[in-house]
């Protein structure tokens, strides 16, 4: 399941809900992305999505990951709007019978979200604002799965 959220969310509660009742799962990998303050240089992030399009694009990749890695289930939460340092931006959880599939699928989905998913990110700081685009590392990470 994929949800875009315009308010802070609770990663621990989401993890527990995701794990509940799983007597045949074995492995749940998760990733929580947290807005960094960059020692005062980033006062807020602003995340923009294209509602409808963004979820559909992510779902296409996530469904392919279900097949590729043999996932039982996944959960993707992504903030939009203004995000303060220390707040969770993204939460991805993956469930599978064994841990390798859960780890790899979670890693893969995060690489996709960081460099190819339809989000646009602006960093606000004391010196003004700037659009953040994927780093060379982000692009190389995402290419590992092609």
């Amino acid at each position, binding site marked *: 399941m994929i949800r875009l959220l315009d308010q802070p969310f609770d990663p621990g509660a989401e993890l527990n809900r995701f794990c509940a009742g799983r007597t045949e799962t074995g492995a749940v990998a998760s990733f929580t*992305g947290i807005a960094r303050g960059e020692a005062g240089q980033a006062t807020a992030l602003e*995340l*923009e999505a*294209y509602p*409808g*399009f963004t979820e*559909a694009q992510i779902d296409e990749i996530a469904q392919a990951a279900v097949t590729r890695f043999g996932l039982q289930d996944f959960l993707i939460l*992504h903030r939009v709007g203004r995000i303060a340092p220390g707040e969770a*931006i*993204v939460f991805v959880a993956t469930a599978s019978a064994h841990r390798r599939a859960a780890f790899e699928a979670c890693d893969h989905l*995060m690489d996709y*979200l*960081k*460099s*190819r*998913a*339809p*989000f*646009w*990110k*602006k960093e606000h700081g004391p010196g003004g604002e700037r*659009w*953040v*685009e*994927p780093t060379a590392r*982000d692009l190389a990470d995402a290419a590992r799965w092609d």
Partner: protein
Amino acid sequence: MTRVLLFGRLSDIAGWRERRFDPTPARLSALKALIAKDDRGLGEALDGPGVRAAVDKALVRGDVSLAGAAEVAFLPPMSGG
């Protein structure tokens, strides 16, 4: 009539996020030409590296027809998480 949406730095460059074009230009190239005539900086940005277009929420490549298109979006390089 078609709705044009700009995302990320494109809307900063343009000073708008959404605009209606009536009548709908025949092709994507015609829409971009119309935009460039009005705002050369934006026109150049739409042809910049990594900028993609979506018609009715589906990514397109090249100069597609806009016949019946309700929504055209211009998407600069993406970065989530």
